[in-house]
């Protein structure tokens, strides 16, 4: 077209575009995503079926696709143009069969599988398989031109509709067939609108029109074409007439179209202009629509990020709340407090601690009351308190995360499709929480044991044993942020924690106690964090399974910009400028029913 380097660059860019389009995944059900997915698919198809092959072999014959509604007479028209019965028209709708491509014998090589429409198998006989392309060579078609009879665009047969759309996207020139009953239908006009938008070369055939209605209908149709941006498309009319015994229209009925096609085939400049118009339009529309896909991909990435934030917020809150509750003294009420008080005994202990640990007395009391059991009771109370706390916050977080996902449609569908009940904590969560709490208690015990290794001989140490000191340490942890006691009831909670603190300080020294308490709290926090992380992961997995690449949008935009740059570079280079390639082909033969 222009400088020899440009097509190669453009081909590279388009290959990259195809890859980027295929890589952009749109799995979330955002509003309007269906449409975008369809476009994405069609764009990939168009690049493979048409744009790349056409760019690589710019001299290939002009592919004219005859498309239109079911029952508009496409097959009859193709047969009449070729002059023999190459494709089977039928009164039954919709006709499902392979699309038929008629070409001149000289051009046979162009239509093997590598060039256009690579995903359609080639056959030479008639076949009912819409996944195949029937090739017919005929001398009636001039060299440099091929005619493809596409299936209908609007019947109940969905395969026909998608195949027709695919074939039309692969055309250099559309020969769009409509009829007196059809010409105001919505579906064909949607196609024509798309054609106008990407300046595909289109010629309209008004078929099956009663002779007395031709003038009126054609006039109306021409007006519709003008208002819908197809002012430059030639309009041919074919009257509804008797078919001969082969099912062909009389030669004079299609002479106009045939003549126009032949002169188009004969004029290589005109042909190149048509190809260029359609190809440029296709590339322009591809790069244009890439932005839509990019926007959709970006919206997907944003939505995933939002859903992720929802989940994180729910679980981070849960973790923070557990952490807070495990340190502000709230755990030191109720059961735990009662057991702890039983454990430390009466206020007399406190008094004796003020001077020194009355170990002998305690030992006796321990012997009588069986203190180790008391320590165990505290441990059990701590365990069930912590467990209830963690469990409820996990449930709550799951519920909150679900609710915030349910508030958007995309999230709702994700939840439905995941097939898991994410709104609740996992089934085994209680068991895992139990184990985690017990592990933590074990950890605290270990901590005390290690710390006390060199103080084993200390008399005070012996009085309480590991268990007792571990319990005291837990109590200190639970009250670690409850700072200064205010109000009456704090007196019972944190006040008793003070006893634990003093006890520990007496054994280990105050610095060690602070360090141990901090360490134990950190340990608890990290265990709860782990627990909640596995819960959070259930949601994160759902998001990760989508495999949405946050950079997809940017790479699409980049490729699109590159294509635009190349297009502009090509436009600046001198080209035979023409407004309408079709109008220039055979001006004397263009019908003039324009209003």
């Amino acid at each position, binding site marked *: 077209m222009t400088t020899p380097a440009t097509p190669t660059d453009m081909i590279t860019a388009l290959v990259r575009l195809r890859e980027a389009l295929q890589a952009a995944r749109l799995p979330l059900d955002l509003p309007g995503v269906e449409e975008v997915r369809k476009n994405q698919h069609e764009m990939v198809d168009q690049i493979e079926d048409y744009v790349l092959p056409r760019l690589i072999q710019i001299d290939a014959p002009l592919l004219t696709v005859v498309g239109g*509604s*079911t*029952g*508009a007479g496409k097959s009859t028209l193709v047969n009449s143009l070729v002059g023999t019965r190459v494709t089977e028209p039928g*009164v*039954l*709708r*919709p006709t499902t069969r392979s699309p038929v491509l008629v070409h001149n014998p000289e051009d046979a090589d162009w239509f093997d599988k590598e060039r256009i429409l690579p995903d359609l198998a080639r056959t030479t006989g008639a076949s009912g398989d819409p996944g195949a392309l029937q090739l017919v060579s005929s001398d009636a078609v001039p060299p440099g031109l091929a005619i493809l009879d596409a299936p209908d665009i*609007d*019947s*109940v*047969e*969905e395969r026909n*509709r998608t195949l027709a759309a695919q074939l039309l996207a692969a055309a250099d020139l559309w020969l769009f067939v409509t*009829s*007196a*009953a*059809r*010409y*105001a*239908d*919505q*579906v064909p*006009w949607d196609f024509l609108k798309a054609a106008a938008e990407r300046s595909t070369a289109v010629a309209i055939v008004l078929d*099956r029109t*009663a002779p007395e*209605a031709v003038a*009126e*209908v054609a006039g*109306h149709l021409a007006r*519709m074409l003008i208002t819908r941006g197809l002012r430059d498309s030639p309009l041919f009319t074919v009257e509804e007439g008797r078919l001969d015994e082969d099912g062909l229209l009389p030669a004079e009925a299609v002479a106009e179209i045939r003549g126009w096609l032949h002169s188009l085939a004969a004029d290589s400049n005109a042909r190149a202009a048509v190809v260029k118009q359609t190809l440029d339009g296709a590339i322009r529309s591809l790069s244009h629509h890439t932005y839509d896909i990019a926007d959709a991909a970006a919206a997907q990435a944003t939505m995933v990020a939002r859903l992720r934030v929802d989940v994180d917020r729910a679980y981070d809150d849960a973790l923070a*709340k557990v952490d807070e*509750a495990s340190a502000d003294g*709230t*755990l030191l*009420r*109720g059961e735990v407090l009662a057991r702890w008080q039983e454990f430390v005994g009466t206020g007399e202990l406190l008094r004796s601690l003020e001077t020194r640990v009355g170990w002998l007395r305690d030992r006796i009391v321990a012997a009588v009351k069986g203190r180790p059991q008391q320590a165990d009771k505290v441990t059990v109370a701590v365990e069930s*308190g912590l467990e*209830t*706390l963690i*469990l*409820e*916050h996990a*449930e*709550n977080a799951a*519920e909150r995360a679900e609710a915030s996902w349910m508030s958007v449609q995309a999230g709702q569908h994700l939840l439905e499709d995941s097939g898991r009940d994410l709104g609740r904590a996992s089934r085994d969560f209680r068991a895992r929480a139990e184990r985690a709490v017990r592990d933590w208690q074990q950890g605290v015990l270990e901590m005390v044991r290690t710390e006390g290794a060199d103080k084993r001989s200390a008399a005070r140490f012996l009085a309480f044993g590991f268990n007792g000191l571990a319990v005291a340490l837990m109590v200190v942890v639970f009250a670690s942020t409850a700072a200064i006691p205010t109000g*009456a*009831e704090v007196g019972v909670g944190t006040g008793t924690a003070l006893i634990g603190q003093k006890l520990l300080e007496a054994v280990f020294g105050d610095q060690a106690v602070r360090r141990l308490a901090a360490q134990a709290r950190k340990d608890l926090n990290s265990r709860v964090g782990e627990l909640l992380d596995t819960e959070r992961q259930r949601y994160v997995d759902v998001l990760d399974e989508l495999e949405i690449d946050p950079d997809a949008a940017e790479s699409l935009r980049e490729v699109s910009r590159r294509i635009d740059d190349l297009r502009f570079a090509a436009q600046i280079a001198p080209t035979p400028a023409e407004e309408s390639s079709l109008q220039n082909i055979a001006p004397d033969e263009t019908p003039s029913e324009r209003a």
Partner: protein
Amino acid sequence: MTALVEGAKRLVGKGSSDVTTRVAGLEQAVEAARGRLDDALVDDAAGVVDRAGARLRLSAEHTVVALAGATGSGKSSTFNAVTGLDLAAVGVKRPTTSWTMACTWGAEGSGDLLDWLGVPRRHQVSRNSMLDTPAGDDRDLQGLVLLDLPDHDSTEVSHHVEVDRLVKLTDVLVWVLDPQKYADAAIHDRYLRPLARHKDVMLVVLNHIDEVPADRRSSMVADLQRLLKADGLEGVPVFTTSARNGDGVDELKKELAARVAAKKAVRARLLADVKGVAQRMQEENGTAKPGDVARARKSELIDAFADAAGVPTVVHAVDQATRVRARQATGWPVTKWLSRFKPDPLKRLHLDLGPRGKELTAGARASVPEASQVQRARVDTVVRAVADDAAGDLTHPWAVAVRHASVSRLEDLNDALDRAVSSTDLGVSRTPMWWQVVRTLQWLLFVVAVAGGLWLGGLAVMGYLQMPEPETPDYLGFPVPTLMLLGGVLAGILVALLSRLFTVLGARRKARSADRRLRAAIGEVTEELVIEPIEAEIEAYRRVRDGLATALR
């Protein structure tokens, strides 16, 4: 619904009350499902209820038949052929018809119906007004309201909107197809398949049959029937006509006359509507039996609430307070004043302030410690379990509704629990009889002891003053004053100790009874805060389920 019943009574033919029942069932379901099931679906159902109600109130003597189809299929030609008048514009320009045209046979009472259909007066024609005496088959068509709809497939979107509106309102739908367009996705995907339920009130006309070679016609009809079968419309009568030549129009008229005469179309149409939407609702609603909240679960709930309300603290306080008070009442008078310094645990909790104290602090908070996070977490966990139990196998929307309902009133939890605890009569204000008896006895013994002491003192003073010692009586060899002093003291202490024993038992009993009463009060709170809202949802579910069952019966 009364107007509906009246309207239904006017409907001739059996089973009209059946329609009313079904519509009423659907209405009940709609009301109860609002806000619980998918809004769009409920709106659809509400639309059906409205339309059915409106149609039942309107003329039962008329059957509304609409001619619908693609542009160019010949709706207007068919309309003209059936009416025998050149009313609807026929043309080659597409789309031709932009508004709905109506023709009525037997105009009496059809005015409101046409207003409801939204056909303006200038587009209405009455067949009787044009002909003095209805002749022949026109008499058979008495009661027919024939509508010529715009197309559904042209570039004019306003036409589609009109078609969509009227397709919902008419009693019988006649789809006019033609050889070119009979397989269009526009009609099959958008109208025929979704209306598969209405096949009893549908007819299909294959118009323009004259354009098809005679030998191909039967295969085309067979093909059309194949497509209709794929849409779920097997058995819908297919007429081949040529409105232009008048072929087949008589058969169509005969069929229309039969439908009008049977007067079943209104009912059939409404039934199909009701059943269709009820079916969809039932799919979302489910028919499962709601779960049961077991007694064990309820008591678990009460336990958790009681714990959060600080019931154990209060019960403990009752126990302690009873002991303190009993000690004050029954203790040995010499030492019992000491116990006055021990604070009354109930007073510390601001409970049991006596009747006057209650008045002063009515509605004020008790000082029972507020529920800790752990207790609150326990409450939430149990409430969740209760909601799960109650929801049982219900579908997701209902499970969500039940769950929401279960926590809807929990914000008031602390207040409600507090009210329950502070308004419960703990039974500590009543003092048992035996306390009085013991108190009197104690004083009596005290007096005896003091008297003995004074006596002995008097004797001692007299001895000190070397006064003649008066005769002191003795009992079993012990001087009576000594016996009085020692016996009084010993007996007082003994009685004090004994009554202490009874006090412990009594305090325990009181504590238990306070616990029972508190739990009963808290049971009411759980009913009010948790069980009632849940049951309201379950009741709504039952109403929807039963309503739908009635509608689908």
